[in-house]
């Protein structure tokens, strides 16, 4: 294990975090919130001390070896450290105890949006801003951000791609352009562009502060609201704009790149995008029709049904209505959407449409082979053969996914809450959605769970965001052993 490079990288991540925290500090001064200001200043001091210490320890020549395990460990450690230090403003301002602050922050960075607060309006505005901003930072990934900033290194240049792979969701992450740094810059340019567009459209009909916070939550597919009513209190216009943008941020960003390159043909033939759109439209219609009785008009019904569908499917987790009160069919569809999630290479979480697509195809081919032994049925996606290693990776991921969810569910049942609450809490956290059903529904919160359950859910959120392996790698002895 290349400890020096790892320490250096972690220090850089902390410095980036400190820089990203500065706007929140300024806001606390503008809004006149002395306790928050104090908390930010102490946090910055602690972050600078730790990163200074790490830089000191990792100074000098770095070894050249930077391979898969360094890439994975780098992603895992960075996210852990990000959560641990990002929680300090909430803790130091005295708003919550440390575990709750950690839960809230990890939920922010992993773009989950699960909250332990029963009512958010009492939180200082600058803290609300920081809470929403963590979504934006975590959405595209802070390591990708760092990769866009740092100049290309000579040694192990190619292996830094493992950092991109570790942080960007999807079974087969690739670069958009040959150089990693340019790829990272491109991703952030698209991300920033879409976010600004979203802010402008929202600011037409809501206060500018709210527009920023909601746009951050939408862009990162996070879902922290800044009012107790979620997005229910805003105008239908705001709700539709948010619906559209939640959908857009759940699309693979390489599609936008191809659009920019004026190659729309390959975008609209993309199997994952088609599946994503198909599931979104049909789920919106089904939930709408089945929950129509609760609302006055069809336009209101579909506004709510499509909002909730986009919100859960893109794994954002905003709500305009309490879908806990929907009929079982509509709730069933939502649970299905929780698991499916958004697209690979987007800011969303979940299993991803591409994996669903591959699982179904792989299953069909395997069944055919079982019925007619000796025949060869290769799996194709987008007209191209899917390589054996991708399928193997898919199976590994699925097994880990199911096992972790089962284990977390068992641990959560210790708290004695009902089954719906326990299982949807795990699903909502692991898939980075936020609200589940039952006690953790859109109008509820995670505050009443025990510390053990909260820690389990924090683990789930991190494992879900980084697609399991970087977090597992941190816990594995092979990662840390020499040789």
């Amino acid at each position, binding site marked *: 294990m290349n400890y020096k490079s790892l320490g250096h990288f972690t220090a850089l991540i902390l410095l980036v975090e400190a820089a990203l925290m500065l706007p929140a500090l300024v806001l606390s001064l503008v809004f006149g919130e002395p306790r928050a200001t104090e908390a930010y200043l102490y946090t910055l001091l602690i972050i600078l001390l730790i990163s200074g210490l790490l830089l000191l320890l990792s100074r000098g020549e770095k070894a050249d070896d930077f*391979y898969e395990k360094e890439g994975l460990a780098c992603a895992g450690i960075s996210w852990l450290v990000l959560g641990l230090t990002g929680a300090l403003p909430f803790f130091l301002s005295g708003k919550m105890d440390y575990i709750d602050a950690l839960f809230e922050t990890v939920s922010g960075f992993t773009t989950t949006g699960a909250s332990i607060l029963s009512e958010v309006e009492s939180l200082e505005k600058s803290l609300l801003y920081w809470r929403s901003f963590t979504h934006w930072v975590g959405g595209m990934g802070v390591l990708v951000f760092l990769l866009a900033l740092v100049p290309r290194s000579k040694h192990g240049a*190619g292996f830094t791609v493992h950092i991109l792979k570790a942080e960007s969701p999807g079974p087969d992450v690739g670069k958009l352009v040959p150089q990693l740094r340019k790829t990272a810059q491109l991703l952030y340019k698209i991300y920033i562009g879409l976010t600004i567009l979203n802010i402008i459209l929202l600011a037409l009909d809501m206060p500018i502060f709210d527009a920023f916070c909601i746009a951050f939550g939408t862009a990162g597919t996070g879902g922290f609201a800044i009012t107790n009513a979620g997005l229910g209190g805003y105008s239908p216009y705001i709700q539709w704009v948010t619906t559209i943008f939640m959908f857009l941020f759940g699309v693979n960003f390489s599609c936008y790149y191809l659009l920019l390159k004026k190659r729309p043909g390959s975008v609209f033939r993309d199997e994952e995008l088609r599946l994503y759109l198909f599931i979104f439209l049909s789920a919106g219609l089904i939930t709408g029709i089945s929950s129509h009785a609760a609302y006055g008009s069809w336009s209101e019904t579909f506004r709510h049904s499509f909002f909730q569908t986009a919100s859960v499917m893109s794994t954002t987790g905003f709500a305009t209505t309490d879908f806990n009160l929907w009929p079982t069919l509509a709730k069933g569809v939502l649970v299905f959407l929780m698991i499916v999630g958004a697209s690979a290479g987007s800011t969303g979480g979940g299993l991803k449409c591409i994996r669903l697509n591959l699982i179904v195809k792989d299953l069909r081919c395997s069944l055919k082979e079982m019925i007619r032994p000796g025949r060869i049925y290769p799996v194709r996606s987008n007209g191209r053969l899917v390589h054996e290693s991708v399928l193997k990776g898919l199976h590994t991921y699925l097994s880990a996914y199911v096992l972790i969810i089962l284990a977390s569910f068992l641990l959560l049942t210790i708290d004695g809450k009902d089954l719906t609450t326990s299982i949807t809490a795990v699903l909502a956290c692991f898939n980075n959605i936020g609200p589940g059903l039952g006690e953790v529904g859109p109008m509820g919160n995670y505050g009443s769970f025990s510390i053990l359950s909260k820690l389990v859910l924090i683990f789930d959120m991190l494992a879900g965001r980084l697609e399991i392996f970087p977090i597992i790698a941190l816990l594995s002895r092979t990662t840390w052993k020499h040789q």
Partner: protein
Amino acid sequence: MKIIIAGAGKVGTTLTKALSADGHDITLIDNDREALSSACELYDVMGMEGNCATLEVLTEAGAAEADLLIAVTNADEVNLLCCVTARELNPRLHTIVRIRNSEYTAQILAMKHVFGISLIVNPEYSAASEIARLLRFPGFLARESFAKGRVELVEFRLKEDSPLTGLKLYQISDVLKTRVLICAVMRGSSITLPRGDFELKADDRIYMTAPASELGGILRELGVITRKVKRVILGGGSLISRYLSTMLERDGIKVQIIDRSRARCEEMAKFLPHASICCGDITDTSTMEREGLSSCDAFVALTGLDELNVIMSLYASSQKVPIVITKQGHIDELQNIIGELSLGSVISPKQLCSDIVVRYVRSMRDNSGDTAVTVQTVAGGQVQACEFIIGPGAPHQNTALSELKIKSGVLISAIFHKGQVTIANGSSVYQEGDSVIVISTESKNIQRFSDIFA
């Protein structure tokens, strides 16, 4: 620049390494997934699996917007088809194609014209010419020419009894009775750009710039007795052997080729009517003795196996063969790994080919005249020597070198001014129109003349 490299073999990956270090956008195409993914992990490039000669793969690799295509798959015909297809997509595309089959040699110029190829490279042919050059002018392990052959960078190994052993650098001009500059010294596997108080030891590998006209005198002062090479034994009947034999025969040097495969020997005999070709095992010392190894003037190890080449060269050295040359194929930095052993000169076809392509790419990037006209790598790729022509806008003209702030690990070694070679010292100056030879260590990545200043 946007560069597409077709073929992730030996030459392909060497090029990928060199060109990605220069900061180009590289897309690497190969139909072998394993080769591709290992190259993509080592270097910051994009990989694409598929047949590089198809319109589909080339389109997806972005041939329409690319500046340069380098086709180096193992089949000449595929390389040509790849080039033709890509030019169909993008007529402005520069193309570099590897053609190594000797049967095509006669029609190379015609092919270049017909297929619109910018540059044809042939690593085996380049290696053969390099070896032939060493054999024509024996005495040094390597020789690189600059300034139209007026300045030379030579490599030699210091023997125990050499008059230079134990001297400090500032003393050597007196011994050699001429101005030379020792630019780099390899001790073990580490390379230094030495200062004046550096002390030379036996077994150091020395890289020295000197005026070409003085080399004969220097060899005499060093006590190296050079005989004209009359008889050469080539171990292994490879493509390089075939090219090399033709070249040496033209110079009237007698060539003996030994290979263990009868079929290959017969094939060689068909093409080389004058060479003496023997079917036998080169690992068998009695075969070698029968062929007169100990009395020959030079031995060149050219089999396809690096380890066999190494063993054969060691054996030839032990038999006191005056000139030993070893071909290096797969193992990178062979020289650094076994720097202590006497392998004689090490020739790496892929490195030679990469030097040629890198030179072409650098001159393509910018026509301002600030780029190197010659790029040579020595010491197993650890040291780079570049020749720059000073343009009208070059900085610090007419300033004494001792007053310039030049990056550490970079050194101006010689200045060629109006037909006159000056080996650089603190008071030297350069002017517009001069050729300047710059020596740098691998990590400095000097591409333009202005890059040398701190």
